């Protein structure tokens, strides 16, 4: 039985320019702010920034790795509060933690997530609703 307060195994994700190029190709989001430093600085950004959706996807891995079945994630939402700046060649490191905030009789658990780069949070209201293992075993 999953209890409120259970901490999910935390993970850290190094992010480099090549990762952003690969995500651009896979997702179809070729906005140059995610790969072209000249363009990014011209539009007032400190440097190339990661796709918000890439950050969102990495953060979700803490939940899907814990759940085992990624299909158990029924709801997942985030608010983007701070861009993840990815300088070359240093890159950035995204640190993700998660904690079970609610576990209902309905077999659904709510996981609150925290995502930080250089000690600063980059997402707010990052939360996933997951079918907990006991319940998913009974589903057809």
């Amino acid at each position, binding site marked *: 039985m999953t209890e409120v307060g259970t901490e999910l195994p935390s993970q850290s*994700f190094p992010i480099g320019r090549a*990762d952003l190029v*690969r*995500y651009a*190709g*896979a*997702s*179809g*989001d070729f906005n140059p702010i995610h790969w072209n430093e000249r363009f990014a600085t011209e*539009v007032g950004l400190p440097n190339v920034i990661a796709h*918000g*959706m*890439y950050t*969102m*996807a*990495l953060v*979700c*891995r803490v939940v*899907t*790795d814990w759940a*085992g*079945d*990624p*299909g158990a*994630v*029924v*709801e*997942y*939402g*985030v*608010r*983007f509060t701070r861009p993840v700046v990815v300088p070359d060649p240093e890159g950035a490191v995204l640190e993700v933690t998660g904690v079970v905030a609610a576990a209902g009789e309905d077999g659904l658990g709510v996981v609150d997530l925290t995502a930080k780069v250089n000690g600063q949070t980059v997402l707010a*209201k990052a939360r*996933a609703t997951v079918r907990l293992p006991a319940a998913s075993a009974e*589903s*057809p």
Partner: protein
Amino acid sequence: MPLDQSFVGRVYAPTAPYEVGREKIREFADAIGDANPAYRDPEAAKALGHPDVIAPPTFAVIVTSRAAHQVIMDPELGVDYSRVVHGEQRFVHTRPIHAGDALTVVVTVENIRSAAGNDIVSTRGDVSTVEGEPVLSAYGTLVVRGAGA
């Protein structure tokens, strides 16, 4: 100049079907560095009760962001795309996307408001199969940065 409030409630025509392929799911899973076999091995996915390999929870953005672009690129609304940043995103799944799905999206403009000199456009994309089975809804908020922001 604030965006036209009369766009709130507007519903766009269903998008052209997007066929979800196993290799596209694998490519996306590779791009997010996720080795989960449910994305790659049909037998592993079936063992979890899925009909074929499933897509990561945020894979839906491939179809929903293109659909939301109908709003952002709508010349009648007149958004300056170069000033758009992603504010919020949420996916509510009826079931996971899996290989073999042919997905279409109906986008509704849920809200338009101004805050701190920015325009904030909220959309909902209802994703279903071409057979009419609901798969998920995507709630997105895009922020159009004002000239001073």
